[in-house]
């Protein structure tokens, strides 16, 4: 298996690596459940969580993951960082890299931030904790670990993802993972919330939520950024959005009693998801949170292991479209076989 130097996105992983990280995450679940939640795996490693966007849960998840593996973890958020003083992103990155951390975990509102920094930051491994509307790989690995608890294989499963697909890095990362692992994605949204040419990911596109429900093995609800949406005319009102695209009990029943409900959090109860659905037995939202810590432990351990690890994508910035598509088409085997 190709060793990992960075984790920019699902795009850069082959199915074997995805399987490996999910399985590694599985073996960390136990550590998080016992009374002494600590292993010495990353003793002496330094991890900096550099968050330019607010995110309580992802940052906490990465912080716990690092600390439970005995790494020294520093958190920097945009509000306390030098960016407020006009320092450029690159200078902030190079300054932190000069302090010799092993891993920089980065969240930024600009797509491609991790690839951009990696070009200039030498040895430091970079983990993408979400970049603009581009990728959010640890969320997708988390979801796969969660689904693994219920499903034997991802092969031919149908995940229906609903909401602001246009601005969703979770949706994009899932669409890429689906091709690699052989599951199917349905995307559901009004056209105002869909990016151009979305069908080229090989997904089914629906504007009618009710039509997409039958046959859905999981329904994945995305968070609605409510203020932004009405201001730019993407939706007329929260009320109408909930009526058209909210997951309520009737819709869950239409999908099926075994249908799993996922949400990357934080949830807007009463907007994209009704409270009784959020709290139902079908909901795996809290499992996702729990597994998120285990997956992030796995990612950090995988990046720290093996000094002779080759860079996974040394010249990502010059990859051609064909290479990207070939990657996407690689090996569609079910990954728990």
């Amino acid at each position, binding site marked *: *298996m190709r060793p990992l130097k960075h984790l920019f996105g699902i795009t850069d992983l082959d199915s074997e690596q995805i399987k490996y990280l999910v399985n590694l995450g599985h073996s960390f679940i136990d*550590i998080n459940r*016992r009374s*002494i939640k600590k*292993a*010495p*795996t990353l003793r002496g490693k330094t991890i900096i969580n550099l968050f330019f966007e607010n995110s309580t849960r992802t940052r906490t998840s990465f912080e716990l993951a690092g600390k439970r593996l005995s790494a020294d973890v520093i958190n920097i958020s945009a509000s306390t960082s030098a960016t407020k003083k006009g320092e450029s992103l690159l200078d902030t990155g190079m300054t932190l890299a000069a302090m010799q951390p092993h891993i920089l975990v980065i969240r930024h509102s600009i797509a491609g931030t991790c690839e951009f920094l990696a070009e200039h930051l030498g040895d430091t491994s970079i983990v993408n904790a979400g970049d603009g509307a581009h990728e959010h790989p640890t969320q997708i690995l988390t979801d796969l670990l969660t689904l693994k608890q219920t499903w034997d294989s991802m092969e031919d499963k149908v995940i229906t993802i609903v909401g602001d697909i246009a601005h969703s890095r979770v949706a994009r990362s899932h669409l890429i993972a689906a091709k690699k692992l052989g599951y199917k994605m349905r995307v559901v949204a009004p056209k105002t919330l869909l990016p151009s040419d979305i069908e080229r990911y090989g997904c089914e596109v629906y504007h009618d939520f009710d039509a997409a429900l039958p046959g859905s093995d999981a329904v994945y609800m995305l968070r609605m950024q409510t203020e932004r949406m009405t201001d730019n005319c993407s939706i007329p009102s929260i009320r109408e959005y909930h009526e058209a695209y909210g997951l309520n009990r009737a819709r869950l029943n239409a999908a099926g009693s075994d249908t799993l409900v996922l949400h990357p959090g934080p949830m807007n109860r009463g907007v994209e998801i009704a409270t009784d659905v959020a709290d139902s037995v079908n909901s795996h939202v809290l499992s996702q949170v729990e597994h998120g810590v285990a997956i992030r432990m796995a990612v950090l351990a*995988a990046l720290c*292991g093996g000094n002779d690890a080759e860079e996974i994508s040394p010249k990502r910035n010059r990859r051609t479209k064909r290479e990207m598509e070939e990657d996407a088409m690689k090996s569609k085997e079910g990954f728990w076989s």
Partner: protein
Amino acid sequence: MTDTVLFDNTALEDALIRMATAIAGTEIYLVGIHSGGAKVANAIQIQLEDAGNTVHRGNLDISFYRDDLDTIGPNPEVRPSELPFDVSGKEVWLVDDVLYSGRTIRAAMDELFDYGRPSSIKLAILVDRGGRQLPISANCVGLTHNAPANCTVKLITKGTWHIEQRQVK
């Protein structure tokens, strides 16, 4: 490269019986170390249960407790540790197939302590091949063989069990 069978199946069977006899007691907490130690622990468990002892089994995967993660990276075959009993106040038998440097045992003890505080930890080893790098010795040893440093000693469980010595460059 030369492969030598150090101990054949008969020698191993005898050793496992001797080990079970030495470990025997009323309540036994037996923890195998993935993956060879877990197999040895299974074999000893059968002997002990046949003799009427009560055995509590657990397994440890010490991948996350190794001191050489930097050079080798996480093991792709890593499995979750399973300790379905509370180790606090118990006498716990750690079981492994081959004892060499002692680093695996140290890592296993570290992990065990993260589950609780056993009253004591004892070590049962199928083969002690010498070459210790840490002050660790087993309480119960099935077989002994001083292997040269340029050799690996392995428990082979494919087919009939035996112990193999292989010279490496």
